[in-house]
């Protein structure tokens, strides 16, 4: 049986078993490796993607549950670093190893889509599901604030 949904705006049809976590469908079947495996248990956020605009942990999202929906991964932000968060991440030189940053960016993007002036506690709430072992949290916080400020002034 096949499941169809939209991946980064394009219609796709996948053959993986229904219970396959979306993470592995994206990585193994669709070949998009920007979405990372960190824990397989919705504990670390490395696999965060947007499902109809809302951030979800793709490692705990069965393929069957995304039928007909819109899935967006890190590759959808922009391929030319033009997204406000990508620019802020570069300006603050946020990443160290970079492995968790796809998930961090997708959580941050979901936050800014709802809230263009997040407080520290808004950032805590939106970002504390994403673990960074390298310890880039202070720069992530600063980059989110910079990006939010740019969004506010550009409106």
């Amino acid at each position, binding site marked *: 049986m096949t499941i169809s949904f939209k991946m980064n705006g394009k219609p796709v049809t996948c053959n*993986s*078993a229904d219970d*396959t*976590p979306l993470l*592995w469908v994206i*990585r*193994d*079947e669709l*070949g*998009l*490796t*920007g*979405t*990372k*495996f*960190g*824990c*397989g*248990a919705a*504990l*670390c956020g*490395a696999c965060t993607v947007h499902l109809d605009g809302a951030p979800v942990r793709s490692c705990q999202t069965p393929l069957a549950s995304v039928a007909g929906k819109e899935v967006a*991964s*890190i*590759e959808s*932000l*922009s*391929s*030319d*670093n033009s997204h406000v*968060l*990508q620019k802020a*991440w*570069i300006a603050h*030189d946020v*990443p*160290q*190893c*970079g*492995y*968790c940053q*796809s998930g961090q*960016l997708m959580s941050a993007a979901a936050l800014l889509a709802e809230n263009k002036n997040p407080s*520290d506690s808004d950032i*805590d*709430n939106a*970002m*504390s599901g*994403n*673990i*960074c*072992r*390298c*310890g*880039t*949290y*202070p*720069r*992530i*916080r600063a980059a989110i604030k910079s990006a939010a400020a740019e969004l506010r002034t550009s409106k």
Partner: protein
Amino acid sequence: MKNQLTSSAAEQPQLAANSVVSASRRLWLKSAASLGGLILTVGPSGLVMAADAAKFGGDAMPGGLVDNVLAFVSIGSDGIVTIVAHRSEMGQGIRTSLPMVVADELGADWAKVKVIQADADEARYGNQDTDGSRSMRHSFRPMRHIGACARQMLETVAAARWEVPVAQVKTSNHEVIHAASGRRLGFAALAADAAKLPVPGKTSIRLKPTAELLYIGKQHALGIDLKNIVTGNTQYGIDTRVDGMLYAVIARPPVFGGKLVSVDSSAALKVPGVLRIVELAGSPAPAMYHPLGGVAVIASNTWAAIKGREALKLVWDDGANASYDSAAFRLSLQAAVRQPAKAARNQGDSMAALAASKKTLSAEYYLPHLAHATMEAPAATARIVNGKCEVWACVQAPQATVATVAQHLKLKDQDVTVHVTLLGGGFGRKSKPDFAVEAALLSQAMQGAPVKLTWTREDDLQHDYLHTVSMERLEAALDERGMPSAWLHRTAAPTIASTFAAGANQQQPFELGMSATNVPFAIANIRVEVPEVAAHTRIGWFRSVSNIPHAFAIQSFAAELAHAAQRDHKSYLLDLLGPARKIDPRSMGNDFNYGESPERYPVDIARMRHVIELATSKAGWGRKLAKGKALGLAVSYSFVSYVAVVIEVDINAKGELRIPMVDMAIDCGPLINPDRIRSQLEGACIMGISLALSGEISFKQGRVEQSNFHQYEILRAYAAPREIRCHLVENSLEIELGGVGEPAMPPIAPALCNAIFAATGKRIRNLPIRDQISKA
């Protein structure tokens, strides 16, 4: 079509692969295993020194240093400068920083520099081990030399074309310039002719004056992988995709040293996508970099492999470590530090001084096993074609990966190619290439088909080469001013050597020389004792290694002594260190000094005092703070760098901890890439706090009790310090370089616990902290 200063790797004559296992740690390991019971007296530096008394630093590393421009730099007819990064990128920014040094000395425009990652090839590139906070420390001067070589070749061509003396031209911004006539030529126009020139001899190399450097220590070069990271366009070990690739996970023996008794794979084989079940033999002790054995599930995708593994019915013989129990082991460590043991340093007569002293203080400090928990768990892909194996893996030790894969596949080293991917974190875990060997063995079992091996988080936490578990007992005899006249430190911890020599049961000089024997305090009588302790799991290097428990104990105890003397911790600590002086590391009972020359790298108390003054002054040490708030201080010498840390805590009535501010000061010699030094300090701070607050791997019936991040908790954004200020001591480029990646870890836990004590009066001697603050 591309004019190059160098030919491609494939065109290079194949140098005979070194059949001796080669790399500092590898060299020692091989030798340590054969030395058996003698190893206590022989550390890595000891063996290297025995082989050649004159060699230190990068020269002493297996593979040594290579500063051959032809191996590292090529310039295309389009002017693009391609620079090889020969060290593994795991977040420290080395793929940016080393090429940046070359580019700066060359006079290249960073925007026109491309970086390619070296395959494992130490004959060509020199030592590639990315560990020990050594990459920039050892490679800065070779990289500068390489950049200068390439620059002088371009300058020679331009000067000849203009018929002016070469001394009148210089490079800047990707051009060679003759200032007197205003003439300039881009690198693109010069590269082809430059490639025909001989490489300048070592004595003819002129380095750029510091004032003409643009990137080194100055303008930040944009991280070479940054743009790809934020678009998801990166290749970590887990991201390898090869045509026809199969996917695997392995069920490993749950107890270290255990063996498979039987497997019923009938249910697993019914899982859609599961293709084969493969038994992997375990390896006899010592563990080294060998696979643990077990049962692999090969499938058409990762999820099918995971589901297949869940369906295996496995019976294990748990073997000799079946009763390993952390709580019982801790008691045995405690008993060990309460008994006399063999001394590793004995200066004066601590025992007599303690016996005669009217006042003594003692304390015991415990640190549990720690798991690296890299965000990318180990991952590797391998295939075998025509008797040649190709591996893609996130490894810190590429040449050891070649050697170990070749050994297991019974191939020659030159028939194994290792492509180094990006590493999603390393911290020492990926210095051990057991996972790459597993992937290669699975490819072999599948007739050479490409196999990607994924470690799940459970695999990672339960089969790590763990940081050791330790009990540290400190005892001091105190004079009438409250200063110690005698110091006794007993340190009980399984040794990393046990991973490489079965039965090794005492910390080695390289472990003791990390903040234990080389305690730099001005105390007349110092004795460090090392009880025998057996290991029951794989023990390995973890960022800053034995400095973690030793510095935690010593820097906590120093604060306890200050408190007992009713003195300010900072001024007491400065008195403990004593006056500014340079201490020969060999005078402290142990030759180990991170492999560096004792003459060029003495332990410099002036620098240690300076970082204390810097961190405390920036933190406003001594200022009045609201109730529940306090500052904690610790200092550390490790990896030939000096770091002091002041942590501000804010603890409410419920015992909930917040960390508003951390001030970190480092003296690591010259600052090559200051932003990446800052990011390493920030990262070490957060990792150190994470480990101190919640880091613990425990064992019951030989099994690791933690399976995932709900049980092995990592610090999250809400609990991280709100601000970390990094204060970097400036030094000229002529000063010896120190390490950066590790030295900021050791002082974090003691600074945090000292701050908690200052705020609450609660002294925490057992890590992790968890809820100890709120407990009465």
